[in-house]
């Protein structure tokens, strides 16, 4: 309720400076009153004006009065004035005639207004590359050549063909589908973009896999034409392997021609395979994996907010401060910073939030509102007095279901003392009326027979609270989505079903008990474990937000892996940054550094943790950040590592560059081998940073000593995003890149003190041997052994030892356990700038916990009937939140602060000891009996 959503709004101008901006806005007219619109869709059904539907990538039509998509927020219709017949010509007005809520307002006008804010976060997103101008892709000529975004809509269950893919030329199901990678990315021949768009390899694999899953019968084929497969994030490599296992063909080739098939249906693809043979294959459809570009409004936004852009029109940022734009007080996140995937966008979004508020701590809480709730009346011991409200939803329900019959029926049910039918049970005036009825009839249970609790339960619960009733004394029957909508052709059956649903809801209501929401205090400080870049950034950020921080580092020095890193993103030197970060951390009064010690024990839960260190110190804190880092693999037994001082890992070479023991001027021949210990059966993940690191090292040698021969032996070059430019620069500088496959690994020998490397050149198809006076091994990043710590804090580790996040995309910084967050290499290998982003994101997530003085926990938690418990351990083993543990007698005990009310324990227990408040077994059985009875 402290987010004011301003749709249809643009920024006109900005005044002021960081800490005090005045932003002038214009909101376009919606022509539909959002306070009145109930999203029944009647207007859209009767609207005669059809418009190309952008949401479905133009594959079908929408109406002039429309919603973007069924789940959008606000779920309110809007009239697109440009295509509205009434607004353009003064005729029609069908929508106003049919709207049951009188929500259409053709006289709506633009609204100009201004707001004052302390800072601004820009998140305008991306747009996809438009291939229509490029003759070579044949997108404009051949109907069955489509973009990946179009394919995404074809695959979508909510798309124009309900997820059953049909090709554009003749509406038949395509069986043989090819994807072409790097369309508009990794090239600048024809005004396309020279960076890598970061997401296309993975989305093409996804599209091919989903397609393969749906393909039944003979003749199906999915083929991906690619340059390098870039599967460089958590679980991505395994996903790539899964696609190959499913039979998706991964073809390393760049097709030279797309020709129309017979009668302009399908596509004939001409390409040269790896053996150099010209081939041609017929596909039913070709999907262009289009890259991502800066949004259309980038330039205008940059002008309005006075920020600098890079030459592709992305916001210009610094790797050590990745969410700050060139203007103080203006921050950026998501695709506008650089093309990126969803987890990184989400991390960056949180990072931008913490950066945006670091200078605004005095404003915290000054402009937020909290809802005031009257004390609930005590209904314990009262017989049920149930009120039933049957909604017509305009005509959404009442045109199918006989709502009067349902209401009359409800009156006959035991415990029901009041029944009414509403035109819109959810409307504002009805909420006021329901609250009055609750008070007047002293109702102690409320049933609403309307739509789905997913969207409307919170609203009705608020109404109960406002009327002084415990909000858990509420039940809902979904007679719209499960009734009138799905049984539109069977009004009698739908009415019968609605009676059943209401009878069940009333039966449930009789069993409802008021639930108490426990309130807990919050200790306003955090524990950060790990003093590398991620840990220090997190500690400093949390301290800047005004909270105390305990930073625990096992070693006596701070800095972690970054101490062994020369540069990041090619040119940005790490050492000066690290020194200034360490100085800031050591100098901040809010940070207590505990160096040279480790965590011995952690107890408690969100808001109230107690940690004991090995040094004996006891710390109290409300949140935890684990930034325990990663370790460079020592490649023992691989490529003769350890047999020659000049066979070195990345980190050793960087250290050598920095201390002068590796002098690029003295080198004549250097070989780098990639994927040393990564992407192997025992360690199937990509270490993400090694390709870029090697390119940086190779470039450093070439820049200092252009005559040195530098050879990079790789499997796929994964210089994702703008790192692609470093790869290009290295090729232009004369670095030789040669690819190998797992069945033709390079062979290293050390003879009389000389290193030789033999590899198969993929162009010549011949073995070559070179002498090297330095061999760089791009060895994997592995997880350190953090099992002990993980057990103490009940954190889950993946098979590979990485911390497991609550949700890989939407909660990439949170642990499943509330109040615990992760940052840096412990989550997954990542370059320094992404560790900084994730650490700043952790700051934001920690702040959402610590900025509360108290926390209210949901009342729907599990309880244990200890008389029935046998201490068999099933419940605490299945509990995903570690909320159940044995008490001193070995019986199960629920920690209500950790319980999320999922009900797994209640379902798993053999003796029926656990019960879930709000969803008790007796409640559910009562509903079942009511249904059968």
């Amino acid at each position, binding site marked *: 309720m402290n987010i004011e959503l301003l749709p249809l709004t643009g920024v006109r101008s900005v005044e002021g400076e960081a800490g005090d901006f005045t932003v002038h806005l214009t909101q376009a007219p919606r022509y539909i009153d959002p306070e009145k619109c109930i999203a029944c869709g009647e207007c859209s059904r009767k609207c005669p004006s059809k418009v190309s539907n952008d949401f479905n990538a133009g594959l079908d039509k929408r109406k002039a009065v429309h919603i973007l998509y069924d789940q959008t927020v606000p779920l309110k219709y809007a009239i697109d004035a440009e295509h509205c017949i009434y607004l353009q010509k003064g005729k029609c007005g069908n929508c106003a005639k049919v709207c049951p809520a009188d929500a259409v307002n053709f006289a709506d006008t633009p609204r100009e207004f201004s707001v004052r804010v302390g800072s601004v*976060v820009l998140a305008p997103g991306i747009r996809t590359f438009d291939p229509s101008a490029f003759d070579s892709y044949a997108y404009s000529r051949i109907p069955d050549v489509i973009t990946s975004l179009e394919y995404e809509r074809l695959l979508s269950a909510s798309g124009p063909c309900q997820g059953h893919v049909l090709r554009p030329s003749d509406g038949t199901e395509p069986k043989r589908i090819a994807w072409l990678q790097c369309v508009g990315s990794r090239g600048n021949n024809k005004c396309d973009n020279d960076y890598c768009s970061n997401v296309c390899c993975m989305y093409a694999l996804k599209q091919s896999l989903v397609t393969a899953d749906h393909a039944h019968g003979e003749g199906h084929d999915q083929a991906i034409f690619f340059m390098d497969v870039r599967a460089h994030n958590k679980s991505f490599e395994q996903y790539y392997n899964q696609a190959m296992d499913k039979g998706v063909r991964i073809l390393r080739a760049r097709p030279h021609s797309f020709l129309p098939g017979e009668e302009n249906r399908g596509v004939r693809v001409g390409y040269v395979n790896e053996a150099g043979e010209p081939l041609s294959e017929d596909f039913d459809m070709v999907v262009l994996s289009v890259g991502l570009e800066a949004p259309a409004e980038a330039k205008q936004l940059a002008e309005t907010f006075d920020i600098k852009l890079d030459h592709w029109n992305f916001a210009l940022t610094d790797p050590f401060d990745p969410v700050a734009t060139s203007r103080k007080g203006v921050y950026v996140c998501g695709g506008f910073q650089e093309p990126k995937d969803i987890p990184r966008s989400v991390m960056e979004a949180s990072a931008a939030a913490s950066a945006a508020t670091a200078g605004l701590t005095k404003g915290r809480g000054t402009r937020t509102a909290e809802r005031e709730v009257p004390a609930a009346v005590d209904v314990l011991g009262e017989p049920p007095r149930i009120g039933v409200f049957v909604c017509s939803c305009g005509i959404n329900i009442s045109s199918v279901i006989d709502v009067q019959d349902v209401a009359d029926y409800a009156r006959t049910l035991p415990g029901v003392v009041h029944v009414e039918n509403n035109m819109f049970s959810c409307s504002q005036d009805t909420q006021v009326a329901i609250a009055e009825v609750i008070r007047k009839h002293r109702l102690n249970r409320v049933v609403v027979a309307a739509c789905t609790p997913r969207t409307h339960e919170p609203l009705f619960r608020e109404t109960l609270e406002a009327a002084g009733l415990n909000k858990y004394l509420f039940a809902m029957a979904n007679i719209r989505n499960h009734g009138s909508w799905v049984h539109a052709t069977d009004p009698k059956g739908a009415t019968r079903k609605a009676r059943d649903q209401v009878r069940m809801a009333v039966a449930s209501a009789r069993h409802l008990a008021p639930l108490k929401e426990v309130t807990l205090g919050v200790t306003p400080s955090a524990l950060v474990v790990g003093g590398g870049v991620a840990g220090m950034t997190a500690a400093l950020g949390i301290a800047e937000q005004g909270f105390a921080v305990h930073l625990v580092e096992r070693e006596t020095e701070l800095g972690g892996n970054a101490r062994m890193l020369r540069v990041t993103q090619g040119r940005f030197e790490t050492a000066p940054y690290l020194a200034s970060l360490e100085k800031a951390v050591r100098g901040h009064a809010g940070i207590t550094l505990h160096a040279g010690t480790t965590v011995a024990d952690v107890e408690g839960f969100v808001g109230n943790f107690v940690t004991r260190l090995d040094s004996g110190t006891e710390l109290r804190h409300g949140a935890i950040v684990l930034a325990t880092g990663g370790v460079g693999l020592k490649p023992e037994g691989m490529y003769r590592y350890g047999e020659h001082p000049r066979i070195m890992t990345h980190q050793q070479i960087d250290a050598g560059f920095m201390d002068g023991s590796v002098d690029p001027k003295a080198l004549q021949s250097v070989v780098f081998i990639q994927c040393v210990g990564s992407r192997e059966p025992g360690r199937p993940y990509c270490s993400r940073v090694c390709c870029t690191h090697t390119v940086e090292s190779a470039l450093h040698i070439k820049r200092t000593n252009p005559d040195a021969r530098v050879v990079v032996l790789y499997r796929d070059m994964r210089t994702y995003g703008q790192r692609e430019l470093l790869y290009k620069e290295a090729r232009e500088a004369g670095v030789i890149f040669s690819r190998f496959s797992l069945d033709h690994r390079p062979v290293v020998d050390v003879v009389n003190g000389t290193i030789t490397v033999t590899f198969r050149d993929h162009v010549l198809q011949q073995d070559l041997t070179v002498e090297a006076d330095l061999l760089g091994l791009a060895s994997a990043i592995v997880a350190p052994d953090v099992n002990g710590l993980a057990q103490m804090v009940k954190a889950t580790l993946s098979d590979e030892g990485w911390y497991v996040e609550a949700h890989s995309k939407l909660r990439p910084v949170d642990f499943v356990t509330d109040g615990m967050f992760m940052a840096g290499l412990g989550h997954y290998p990542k370059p320094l700038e992404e560790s900084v982003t994730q650490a700043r994101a952790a700051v934001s997530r920690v702040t959402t916990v610590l900025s509360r003085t108290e926390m209210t926990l949901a009342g729907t938690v599990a309880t244990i009937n200890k008389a029935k418990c046998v201490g068999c351990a099933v419940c605490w083993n299945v509990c995903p939140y570690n909320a159940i543990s044995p008490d001193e007698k070995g019986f199960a005990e629920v920690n209500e602060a950790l319980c999320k009310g999922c009900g797994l324990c209640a379902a798993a227990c053999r003796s029926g000891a656990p019960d879930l408040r709000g969803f008790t077994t007796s409640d559910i059985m009562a509903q079942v009996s009511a249904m059968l009875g």
Partner: protein
Amino acid sequence: MNAATKATRPDAPPADASGAVMVVGGGIAGMQSAIDLANSGFKVYLVEHKSGIGGVMAQLAKTYPTNDCAL
């Protein structure tokens, strides 16, 4: 949002700019930023040029590597 919450919202011109942050863009990044900001004690103005929020992610059928629905 219903009237009960709206009535308590300070719609009058605010005294202190530092209590609020503006987020431009209602896709996955803008939404996450806005949620974090609001949960950290700041008033948020979430500006979106379309008629509803959701951005490009809402257009995706599924998301890798878990094949979850994007919505």
